[in-house]
């Protein structure tokens, strides 16, 4: 479960990205985060896996209080949260296979299981034939799928995706959505920031709209609500 109470975030350079966020997300929910560029969506997401720390307010993730969570415990929080980054964040010198395996090596999974789990997830995102490629040898969409594969490979409780379909053609986007729905149906919480009106209006889920660092709308089975 994710709980935020009166959360503010001001970056060191003085930019206030979040201005009093209140939200509660239950385990197993599927939530879209929408809003114009610069509204604070990525910031909202970064607070959940402690890439950023709130300036004010309370954040609880899986019963852990983010403000009092010790620096040493942060890696363990992150193992329960799979993140698909807006800029992929793949390790440039590692192959696709090694990038995904990294998330499992961190939790000291056995080499046999690592092999199986990585191959399974590669199958799922359709990159089995590119396992030995390094990120530079992949298209943007393929890199994004590697990023998704790494986020879900260790079956985390929460998957957070920052524009996971931003670089994909419509067809691949729908495939990615299918994957996210699939892991959601097995009980994983999905939080997904997106600018895709089509996806939000077609696969109806809870929609949280952020503008100028505030939640302006929060509806179940909501609409995208912006014209592009």
């Amino acid at each position, binding site marked *: 479960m994710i709980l935020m109470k009166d959360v503010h975030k001001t970056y060191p350079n003085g930019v206030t990205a979040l201005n009093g966020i209140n939200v509660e997300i239950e385990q197993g929910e599927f939530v879209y985060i929408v809003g114009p560029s610069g509204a604070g969506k990525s910031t909202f997401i970064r607070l959940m896996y402690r890439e950023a720390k709130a300036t004010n307010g309370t954040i609880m993730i899986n019963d852990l209080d983010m403000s009092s969570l010790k620096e040493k415990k*942060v890696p363990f929080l992150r193992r329960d949260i799979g993140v698909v980054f807006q800029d992929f*964040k793949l390790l440039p010198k590692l192959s696709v296979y090694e990038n995904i395996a990294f998330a499992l090596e961190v939790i000291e999974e056995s080499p046999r299981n690592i092999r199986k789990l990585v191959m399974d997830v590669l199958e799922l995102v359709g990159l089995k034939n590119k396992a030995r490629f390094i990120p530079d040898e992949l298209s943007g969409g393929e890199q994004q799928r590697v990023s998704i594969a790494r986020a879900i490979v260790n079956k985390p409780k929460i998957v957070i995706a920052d524009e996971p379909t931003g670089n994909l053609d419509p067809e691949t986007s729908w495939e990615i959505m299918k994957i996210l729905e699939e892991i959601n149906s097995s009980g994983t919480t999905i939080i997904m920031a997106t600018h895709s009106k089509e996806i939000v209006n077609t696969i109806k889920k809870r929609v949280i709209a952020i503008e100028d660092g505030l939640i302006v709308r929060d509806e179940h089975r909501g609409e995208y609500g912006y014209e592009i």
Partner: protein
Amino acid sequence: MKFRTVRRHLREGFKNIARNGWMTVASVGAVTTTLILVGAFLALMLNLNQMADNIEEDVEINALLELTLEEDQITTIGDEIKQINGVDSVVFSSKDEQLSELVDSMGEEGKSWQLFEQDNPLNHVYIIKTKDPQDTIKVADKISDLQGVQEVNYGQGVVERLFEFNKYARTIGVVLIVGLVFTAIFLISNTIKITIMARSREIGIMKLVGATNGFIRWPFFIEGLLLGILGSVVPIAAILGGYYYLENNISERINYSFVELLPFNPFAWQLSLIILGIGALIGVWGSVMSVRKFLKV
């Protein structure tokens, strides 16, 4: 940490050497250059030190006994000398032995001295060596205070200056070596730091995927160790080869008793081991210190 993780870190450490291509070459090059310097300098210093030791070893005290002593008095003096702190060996040399030594050392001219054989004017002598050559002066002073000792000789004046000189030379040598090693560490850790700086983004990503600091640090540790070991290969080859050449071609031509190179076996091997140790140390130190900075993500 599970065994599989140890294996994983080892594997990653080795792979990183290959993955980082030119960065690895740069680091290994820096280690190699400095280790050659350190190695050559160490070889020089240790040999000079050995030579200084040799000279000091040659220092002995001659205690000339009074001419009128009876045999048992001579024995008593010998025992008294042995009691003195710091004395290593005491050898008696009669006046006849002293004379024949003198005659021998004079060569042809010495023949004329043989006339004295009937009426030897020399003294009986005790030849004393101290455990630590530095104690020579102190021990000599004590011996000269003994009843029945007429005079002590140990090369007064020269020996004091020799010890003084050696002391300064050693201190300067140690300071230079320490300075050189620290400069080497600084240079190399800077080179390695640059190669790791390029990887600070990667370290940040690893942290975001849930890696602990220790998990990130271990492959760097292995990598640094390998860089150090790789960097000491050429210096060790140079030391072994160069020293072998020196010992076989130079040392024969120099014929002073104290100018004698330390024997190739074991010295060159020991030096190689030291170089390997220093290499491994600076490799690990440079890489672990640099990665520390980027772990605070």
